[in-house]
């Protein structure tokens, strides 16, 4: 900094600490709520230090579920995990292949193909929700993982990211591998793929979070309780008639729903930031 002002430093700390506290408080309350029984929460004076019901709440939520729906949260988490991983891997696979084709080959309609993919960048699934629903229904993919995953990987973010990265790779590498007699497949496997590891990982982190947090799409196409994802499951635990809402189970589920993506952000922060910044370019 330009000048050294202890007061400004102090104000910076104060602002940041207040910011962190406000950011953390709602989650802190949810964690606290997951350690009490219904009665303690309902009467409106929930203590701010943990109670002793945590073991009971977590084991009940995970293996039994709320008393309204009775769907074990462990099963919902498995569904969310399959969807998130499917979206992440599916998108990486199709987009690295198409970016490879667009950047390294010359073929008829190459520009057209690129634009056809590029335009999908603009329209989120929300604006074409019912027609997409109808197509998935016609294909018989309701209540399947394929139906959950496919429509959400139809977007250009990954392709653009890989294209951008491939453009920075020096042409000499391709020329060298050609001289060494390597074909397209060898070049892809031995040169391109190893160089792309960080980009792949960054895209994976972003897409995993995106997939795990999906809401509208799974809400529409899953009808069977065995296909429920955790984000949808929580909503069903909270009813408008307050008397029926088991807040301790709902909050336990909320905590469980936050754990995987938040851990990913915290422990893969560098990749997360890279992915976020580069997919938005």
């Amino acid at each position, binding site marked *: 900094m*330009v000048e050294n002002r202890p007061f400004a430093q102090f104000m*910076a*700390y104060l*602002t940041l600490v207040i*910011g*962190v506290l406000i*950011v*953390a408080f*709602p*989650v802190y*309350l949810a964690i606290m709520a997951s350690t009490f029984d219904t009665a303690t929460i309902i009467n*409106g004076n*929930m203590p701010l230090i943990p109670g002793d019901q945590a073991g009971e709440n977590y084991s009940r939520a995970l293996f039994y579920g709320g008393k309204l729906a009775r769907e074990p949260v462990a099963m919902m988490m498995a569904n969310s995990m399959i969807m998130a991983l499917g979206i992440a891997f599916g998108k990486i696979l*199709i987009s690295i*292949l*198409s970016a490879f*084709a667009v950047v*390294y*080959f010359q*073929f008829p309609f*190459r520009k057209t193909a690129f634009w*056809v993919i590029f335009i*999908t*960048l603009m*329209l*989120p699934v*929300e*604006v*074409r*929700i*019912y*027609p997409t629903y109808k*197509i998935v229904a016609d294909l018989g993919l309701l209540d399947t993982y394929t139906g959950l995953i*496919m429509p959400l*990987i*139809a977007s250009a973010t990954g392709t653009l990211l890989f294209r951008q990265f491939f*453009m920075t790779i020096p*042409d000499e590498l*391709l020329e060298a591998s050609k001289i060494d007699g390597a074909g*397209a497949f060898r070049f892809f496997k031995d040169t391109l793929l190893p160089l792309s590891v960080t980009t792949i990982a960054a895209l994976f982190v972003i897409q995993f979070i995106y997939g795990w*947090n999906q*809401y*509208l799409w799974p*809400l529409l196409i899953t009808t069977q309780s065995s296909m429920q994802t955790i*984000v949808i499951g*929580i909503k069903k635990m*909270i009813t*408008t008639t*307050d008397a029926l809402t088991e807040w301790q189970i709902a909050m336990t589920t*909320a905590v469980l729903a*936050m754990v995987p*993506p*938040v851990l990913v*952000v*915290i422990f893969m*922060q560098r990749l*997360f*930031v890279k992915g*976020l910044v580069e997919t*938005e370019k």
Partner: protein
Amino acid sequence: MEKRAHISGWTLPLLLILPQMAITVIFFYWPASQAIWQSFLREDAFGLASEFVGFENYVALFEQPEYYRAMGTTAIFSSLVAFFSLAVALLLATQADKNIRGGHAFKTLLIWPYAVAPAIAGVLWMFMFHPTLGTLGRPLNVMGYNWNPMLDGKDAMILLVLSATWKHVSYNFLFFLAGLQAIPKSVIEAGAIDGAGPFRRFWTIIFPLLSPTTFFLLVVTIVYVFFETFGIIDAVTGGGPAGQTTTLVYKVYADGRLGGDLGGSAAQSVILMVIVIALTAIQFRYVERKVQY
């Protein structure tokens, strides 16, 4: 930009691009064109027959007072979330950019809400501000302010704005911090030598240099409020009370599913597509020009 060196052959590249093309056509172009086509049709009550009605669905839409109300709600919701999430993020980013100990830890502690699903964010805030059992909602009522987001449209909107802002500050913070770190220190030092204090430096040097980031974030935030907050709205208010928190996207969903008016819902989808394309186009134009450099 083009590569000089290429791999020859064109059956292989077509095979490589095929999976993405197939998925894009089946799950993107086909439904998008269906939405446009459907917006010109009217289906009978059983969905058995449909007739071409031209722009009737659009005309009917613009005669609905509810549609204007949804527009108004969307405008208020997005401007409030945009203002607060940008302002708070900028404040935090300028503080974190000061050369302080533990700056990196603060960054980690501020960005994780990005990973929380919008619907979960909504549930957390609803629990906190629940009128009878919430840690913050109950005291409001005890103190005599009649707080009830389940019954009062204004309270419901406040709750939505709070949860949507809470979730999005992390994103804006990250980009502002990156933007601030990209500003050369020499420019700021030059300002200081000329006698400008911290406030003056911020408003005359830093803020203008940051304007491309701000503009980019403004567009991203508006798109976020339009689409991703669907989960928050559905989990917290369900568009209520009495439709007072129904945004444009929520109305597409509610009219098509609960109301069964697929033509009207499709017409709304088409209008939304036009809005998003316009926003994206504006963004590309301005980002190219690099606002204020």
